[in-house]
């Protein structure tokens, strides 16, 4: 999947995550989280997994997490990626 424009998904409510996606060169990930010390590595891994599954190679992802469950992180990121793919997504 090719990222052609900027997009966002999610909110900054507790237990949610706000994801911003934009076109980039290579994969660039920035994660902020209220539970960074407890789940920082896990969140980054989930983001990488989703990018791999959706075959996204060139992208910048900024995630501002407020304690979202893993399934929520996946859903928000997938949504943001599909919105940024400009209709030629899978």
């Amino acid at each position: 999947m090719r990222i052609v424009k900027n997009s966002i998904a999610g909110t900054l409510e507790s237990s949610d995550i706000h994801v911003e996606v934009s076109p980039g060169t290579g994969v660039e990930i920035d994660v902020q989280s209220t539970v960074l010390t407890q789940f920082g590595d896990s969140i980054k891994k989930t983001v990488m997994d989703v990018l791999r599954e959706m075959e996204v190679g060139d992208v910048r992802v900024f995630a501002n997490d407020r304690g979202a469950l893993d399934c929520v992180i996946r859903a928000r990121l997938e949504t943001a990626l599909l919105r940024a793919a400009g209709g030629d997504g899978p």
Partner: protein
Amino acid sequence: MSKLLASLGEAVTASGLKDGMTVSFHHHLRNGDYVLNMVMDAIAKLKIGNLTINASSIFDAHAPLIHHLRSGVVGGLEANYMGSTVGRAVSEGVLNKPVIFRTHGGRPSDIESGKSPIDVAFIAAPSSDSAGNCTGRFGKSACGSLGYAFADAMHAKKVVVVTDNLVDYPLRDYSISEAHVDYVVRVDAIGDPQGIVSGTTRMTRDPVALRIADLATQVISASGFLKDGFSFQTGAGGGSLAVAQNVRNIMREKKIQGSFALGGTTGYLVDMLEAGCFESILDVQCFDLKAVESLRTNPRHVEISASHYASPSAKSCAAEALDVVVLGATQIDCGFNVNVHTDSGGYIIGGSGGHSDVAAGAKLALVIAPLSRARLSIVVEKVLTVTTPGKTVDVLVTQCGIAVNPLRADLRQQLARAGLPLVEIGDLRKMAEETNGIPQKPDLEEKIVGKVLYRDGTVIDGIRQVRRPAGA
């Protein structure tokens, strides 16, 4: 000789305060308090150092205190509760000595017995006369009860009353008598009324909290305590208030005449008093304006001292006469131990307050908590810090079911007979972990930054320094 002095600096000098001594404060002005900061600034100007502060609680409004911890004006802290701002500095090791955490009952007990002597007590008083007869019932900074300040006033070597409403002598309706007071200082404002009490304490609308409150009410109902003579304590949190409202509805419907409500007081308890649910409210601290108003006007709403509330060494205390208490938890573990001192990262964010006192005193101590908050499991294998020992906690109520302490087989049977959804606490822990995932352990150092004293004075746990994350 007049007790009235022109400034805090004069009062500090007159009190004879010297390096290494202990000063004390009470927290009825809560997050609106100016007095602790004003007094410590005056002390710093006089170049007195290495003091110990014994405060019933430290709030975020006391952030300027961090500067005095760094500069050495203050070398030690003792408190029953510490908000997360000063808590963070302490957790990251700003002090050489561990903070001594007590309970609301343990603190006056140690002051009265001489275990924790106070050299100079500063009493923030919303109204006082020139001799120091003072009260929290009225004045622009009215806070209601002064319950936690009594032990300080009666046992400190010197007592300074700080007020922003000086009234004609004698103030008749006093809480603390002039017999204990050495000096009185008038200042422009002792606090910010916005931070002292909230206008209204608000009921939760969170469906998870309401579900927990409903289950908790069913537990209270089935426990057999909800009958004539019932006594009750609950916190000011949304979930606790929802329980109070449910209990009120049942009491009115079944015409149950309760005995007393205890502890920190909200408008919801006042409503229950006025609706005839209880004979009286025994009040150590007011949380909102309605509680302050009620304490001022309703003779059945009574101010009590912290010792009367919960001291383990008093000849008796109200906590021991209590039927049911509803408590919260930051973490609760499979042994029913409760942590309200540290967050899951190990940082100090609170303290017992009266938590462990009333858990020990009440015949039925309920902890209400969601399985998790923002991906952090509340029900865990082992709490990071033990505030309240599991043997004093009878029931945990979550949105996914009710766990009864195995020590209370009688209660478990009673609740099972009532058809309540009982679960094992270990299963709740598993549910929480499966939902949230397994968190990385907090990065803690060996150094102890906080000692948790149980209400009888024994050290029940230590709080370790948190390693600051790289780049922070």
